């Protein structure tokens, strides 16, 4: 492996030294390819352009970033990695372990990143104690989105407990509505699953089963109960859920055809685009049972090894711009997520954004901030996808709850 890596690097040096001698340039691989989020990244490009740095755009959409990761592998194998790559959770650690990432320690120390970025996030941005990536945002995934008009029609208050939540959904179903808008794709099933694990078992159980992958926890009665809750949720989803995109599920809530959706905070963008305001036409609250905790995923720009001095300079300028308060605000206002820095004034954000920022800071303080399994922040991609297989098979009725818990143990074992 090391020999191969050396080969890569030496080829990379050749490519770089011959390719760009004069102009400063960053080549950025990402999957924010359309609509508002692409425009939001565009503000980063504009900031860099002011400093005379050209942005070579390299967008690859699809599969929640998995196609981009394939492309990245081709590029690294070819010996010329991009300057910066949008990356999630464990991928950063994997690439750092290959020795492919740059060291941002000097910049981080100078700008005091360590003080403003929550520790749970730093766990992903650093490898072996050194900064290798610049976090852009924090998405929290344990949100419920609700149509307030529908809630008022049904005479519902915001549910405070799991039983309230089930009762509210029952009321919606009795009224002929879809109680829970959901799209049957593995990652969406897993997003709900995260909240159920946290809600049933609490933080310790989440840590043991999702992060430490303890077989006893994975096969425990608590896990069986988690799967039983998934079955409860399944009972409130319409028959036509399979394969539905998440945003179409959100549209069901927007149109008043459905009461709730359990989804990450990117769903907010859909409500806003439909002309609705947080706290008025729609509302958000934590999945009952998970209050006080936040399951998150965080988009980061991992910085790859570039050897050319001017390219390194441009790379540092980009990392610095990513963590600047201005960009963190601009970008996250569009994206629906909250800034990766906890020291940012929340007054520009709407109700859900302010709630998200406050709760993130609280959870980070109290040790209730956990990486989301569904979004690659609790365990490696192989384990994550093995869990997907079981969760989605169970949700589609292939297993009962007991079998699913047992399958969880086997699948995780095979994936390690």
């Amino acid at each position, binding site marked *: 492996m090391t020999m191969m890596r050396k080969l890569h690097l030496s080829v990379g040096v050749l*490519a770089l030294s011959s390719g760009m001698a004069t102009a400063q340039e960053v080549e950025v691989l990402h999957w924010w390819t359309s609509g508002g989020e*692409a425009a939001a990244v565009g503000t980063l490009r504009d900031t860099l352009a002011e400093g005379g740095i050209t942005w070579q755009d*390299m967008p690859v*959409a699809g599969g929640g970033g998995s196609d981009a990761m394939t492309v990245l592998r*081709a590029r690294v194998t*070819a010996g010329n990695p991009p300057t910066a790559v949008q990356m999630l959770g464990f991928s950063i650690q994997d690439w750092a372990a290959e020795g492919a990432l740059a060291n941002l320690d000097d910049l981080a120390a100078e700008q005091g990143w360590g003080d403003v970025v929550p520790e749970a996030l730093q766990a992903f941005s650093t490898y072996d104690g050194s900064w290798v990536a610049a976090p852009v945002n924090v998405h929290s995934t344990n949100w419920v989105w609700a149509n307030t008009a529908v809630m008022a029609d049904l005479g519902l208050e915001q549910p405070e407990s799991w039983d309230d939540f089930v009762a509210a959904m029952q009321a919606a179903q009795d009224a002929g509505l879809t109680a829970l808008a959901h799209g049957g794709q593995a990652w969406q099933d897993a997003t709900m699953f995260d909240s159920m694990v946290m809600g049933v078992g609490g933080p310790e159980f989440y840590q043991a089963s999702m992060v430490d992958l303890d077989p006893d926890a994975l096969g425990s009665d608590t896990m069986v109960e988690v799967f039983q809750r998934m079955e409860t949720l399944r009972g409130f989803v319409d028959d036509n859920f399979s394969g539905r995109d998440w945003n179409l599920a959100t549209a069901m809530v927007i149109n008043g055809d459905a009461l709730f959706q359990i989804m990450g905070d990117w769903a907010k963008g859909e409500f806003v685009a439909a002309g609705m305001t947080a706290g008025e036409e729609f509302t958000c609250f934590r999945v009952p049972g998970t209050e006080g905790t936040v399951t998150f995923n965080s988009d980061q720009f991992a910085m790859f090894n570039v050897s050319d001095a001017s390219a390194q300079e441009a790379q540092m300028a980009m990392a610095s711009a990513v963590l600047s308060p201005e960009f963190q605000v601009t970008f996250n206002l569009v994206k629906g997520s909250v800034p990766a820095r906890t020291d940012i004034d929340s007054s520009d954000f709407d109700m859900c954004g302010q709630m998200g920022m406050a709760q993130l800071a609280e959870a980070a303080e109290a040790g209730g901030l956990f990486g989301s399994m569904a979004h690659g922040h609790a365990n490696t991609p192989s384990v994550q996808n093995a869990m997907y297989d079981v969760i989605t098979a169970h949700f589609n009725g292939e297993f009962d709850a007991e079998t699913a818990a047992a399958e969880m143990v086997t699948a995780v074992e095979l994936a390690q």
Partner: protein
Amino acid sequence: MAVPSPDSPVRTARITRVFIYLFLLLFALFYLLPFGIMLINSVKPLSEITGGNMIALPREWTIQPWLSAWSTAQIGVQPTGLRPYFINSMMMAFPAVILSTMVGALNGYVLTKWRFRGDTIIFGLLLFSCFIPFQIVLIPMARILGILQMAGTTQGLIMVHFVYGIGFTTLYFRNYYAAFPTELVRAAQIDGAGFFQIFWRILLPSSGPIIAVSFIWQFTNIWNDFLFGASFASGGAAPMTVALNNLVNSSTGVREYNVHFAGAIMAAGPTLLVYIVAGRYFVRGLMSGSVKG
């Protein structure tokens, strides 16, 4: 084999003909349906799509989605639309198609008119290459492109498509030339014509139909390729399919389905045009070559 006839001499009763026409029209409908859905939805405002039936005709017609997909839609951070990528695809597809067709023609010529010991084995080796699953070549190919300094360029992509096109083009030309009278080649040889002269003067002029087949097949495959385009030419040199995928696969943004469909039809435009214009040569070419023993 006698002169091929345009139609079968088999005669059918009137009632049977009615049935035949019904059958053919029914299938025509089936084939047109998905394209029809795309077309209808590309001229509807978005609200009509997300709010209602996706098969219904638009209540309000608009060409805005088409304009947006072509020149203002966001593909990555730049709002360029699909236009620049269209040009990339052209720059990639034509050289790759022409190169692989030329080499295939020469290979077919050698394998049928200049046979030598072991030529069938070589043909077998070439042919089997058509069946390799492309996913397995990504990593080693990336390595080689890196060594050749062609990673992330249109030239690199042309090379990849050329390499994996040779098998098919050789197959087509070999089968076509196998039916070409070898006596003509012999006679020319006795008259002193050389290897390339014979190819140029005798075989090539009568290769029209099979060139059409090879062109259609290669152009379709190369134009529609996503895997190689994404892996080896993302960024500035990205082909149309990669851009289209970026357009339609917004991870967490609002999905403008009407723009997506307009873009999809645009991306399909050139291949559709090729099939409509050159389609009749296709059957003729297949007829004179690839499906005969």
